[in-house]
């Protein structure tokens, strides 16, 4: 029983950390959707660009990967703005399907560009303040330093974005744009600028996330999809456009994918020989999507969604 208690604690810690990682990746996606009703399929590729930025810039400048984060954020923001003015602005004139395929095309373009310049092999950061470090806080309860840093950054980012949207004039303009772009334009709000800002904020947040993640995760041109599949589920679960929803849903998903070790500990503690072979690890993402499916059926706007 004691083992079970410790395992629950471990899974909670691990789930919280991973959940905050998922939430941070989903943040940019939900901001862009919230303002513009556009699902950015290329979101994961922004993450990949952030990862490569840190991977390449850190040895070039001879500084720790963590110190290159502002640069990764900047690259993400610039990429977001470029994508907005170079592609999205035109897509907005077309039907919904054009927007979907447009960002899908952007995803394939960015991925293949990375393939061309970086090759397909996974690459890792070898040295840094966060690389390979972890903090033991109890018997077997470990905080992995990269995930801890991402979690802290995640909370900070959510606080900043929440503050930006709810407590500033710019945020009011963003909200106005998302509620009724035409009305906002009549009120003298430059919706064009607001859209670009949403892409900049979305790109910056995921760029920084990438810069931090590469301290732990190997990066290759296809890495974006690993995280965006979860990010889409996170955003849909939390409610498209809801910042708070992305945070809660991210944590929820983090906790769900950390359930299997608890299950294993339960089996060990009750010595259920018959159930030994029942490995639920391979179903952990099935559980995530099952819950996603349930919520979609029962509450299509998501947990905290306000857009219909």
């Amino acid at each position: 029983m004691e083992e079970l208690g410790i395992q629950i604690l471990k899974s909670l810690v691990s789930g919280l950390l991973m959940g905050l990682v998922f939430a941070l990746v989903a943040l940019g996606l939900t901001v862009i959707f919230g303002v513009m009703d556009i699902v950015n399929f290329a979101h994961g590729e922004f993450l990949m660009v952030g990862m490569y930025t840190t991977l390449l810039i850190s040895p070039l400048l001879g500084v720790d990967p963590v110190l290159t984060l502002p640069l990764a954020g900047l690259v993400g923001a610039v990429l977001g703005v470029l994508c907005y003015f170079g592609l999205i602005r035109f897509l907005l004139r077309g039907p919904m399907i054009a927007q979907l395929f447009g960002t899908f095309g952007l995803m394939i373009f960015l991925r293949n560009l990375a393939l061309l310049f970086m090759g397909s092999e996974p690459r890792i950061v070898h040295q840094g303040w966060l690389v390979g470090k972890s903090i033991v806080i109890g018997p077997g309860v470990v905080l992995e330093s990269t995930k801890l840093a991402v979690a802290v950054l995640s909370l900070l980012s959510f606080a900043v974005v929440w503050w930006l949207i709810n407590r500033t004039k710019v945020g009011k303009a963003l909200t106005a744009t998302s509620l009724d772009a035409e009305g906002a334009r009549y009120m003298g709000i430059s919706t064009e600028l607001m859209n670009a800002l949403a892409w900049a904020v979305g790109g910056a947040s995921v760029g920084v996330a990438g810069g931090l993640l590469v301290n732990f995760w190997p990066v290759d041109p296809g890495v974006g999809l690993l995280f965006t599949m979860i990010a889409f589920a996170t955003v849909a679960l939390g409610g498209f456009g809801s910042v708070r929803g992305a945070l809660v849903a991210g944590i929820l998903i983090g906790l769900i994918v950390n359930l299997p070790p608890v299950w294993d500990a339960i089996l060990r503690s009750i010595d259920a020989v018959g159930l030994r072979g029942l490995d639920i690890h391979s179903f952990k993402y099935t559980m995530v999507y099952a819950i996603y499916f349930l919520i979609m059926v029962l509450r299509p706007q998501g947990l905290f969604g306000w857009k219909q």
Partner: protein
Amino acid sequence: MRKIALVAAIAMLAAMLVPAMAWAGPKEIKIGVIYPLTGPAAAAGRELRAGAELAADIANQVMPGINMDMAKNGGVKSLGGAKLTLIFKDHQGNPQLGADLAKKLILDDKVVGILGCYYSSVTKTVSAVCERYGVPMINGSSTSPTLTKRGFKWFWRTTPHDKWFTKDLFEFLVGLTKGKAKGVKAVPREEINTLAAACEKTEWGSNVAIEIKNFAKEYGFNLAANILYAAKSPDLSSEVQSLIAAKPGAMLFASYTSDALLMIKTLKSMKAKPKILWGQDAGFDKPEFVSLGDDIVGVLTRSVFLPSVVKMKPLSGQVNDLYVKKMGHDLDGASARAFTGLQTWVYVLEKAGSTEPKAIQAACNTISIPGNQLVVPWVGIKFSTKGDEIGQNVLGGGLIGQYQKQKDGKIGLEVVYPFDIATAPLVYPFQGY
């Protein structure tokens, strides 16, 4: 009269030309090669491609420095010195795409046969296409045991498969408890009796998991955790938690490249301390894996080819030198087996003396390539034609290598099993994180 003379002259000319043309045979022999050239296993794909290309280069030219029959002929001798042309296709790790590519190669490119596909899941679909069209396929590097259990008539596999490799692992563990490992005293059985395994869940990994389970039972080990996970997963911490909680003496893995890197990083961050850490080749035998540096010192991987094999086999050294010239690094398990796969194609064509599928089929079923022709440390190549495994090479063998720090400070693989050909003392226990 003049007309008759003209017709007779043409007829004579034709009669002289026809046998001459028949004797000349095909100028080129097209082999379709399907590998993962992009996607998650592209790094392996690059090695596979280079291995096959090198074998074709050696077969197509006369290379006096290589002690191999195919290096002396400058093409396939029995086919009038016809040269091999390889047509590469990229399956991206996608079984359906692989099957489509195989169809294209057979119907559009009119290839004589197919080599590939590394991923067992792709080899499965591609071999099914070959079977349907009656086109021979030789597989050099897919190790799912089920592939040769389907009774296919057009499929031959040169590499030993995971059942053999996994058996090697258990023989190694038992040998360790009996003090057979070089430089290590007999290890108490209870120290390594508990095992925990995590395998990726496609065709290959899930079959490794089954083999591990079966052999653990047969050899009397306690398999406390046997986890399947998605190789394309953003997080492996829950899997690692369960592995550590099982308190195993040995942790066993079947991973592709990215997930192998993430697995080691997660094991390290969660401070895993198994006595033995073993990987079933693939991701554990890639240049990217070696870039993990000190973190992998002591890690074991099964392989069919390790750079230290050149110490035992001069021929491997000769081919390895050419490979280093081409790629800048040593042959590995993937490239050595791709080389051997294509080499087998050359010997089969030489024996068949024809590009007709039936003749190739007969040649495959009766061929016997001695070990002294091969770069891999096998007894030879001879395919089984009866029993529950059809088309499997019965003369193959596996190795277990260990990453060790070498004199120059670099991390390299040393052979630690079979015990009698170990190239360095075993580092035991694994340092832990």
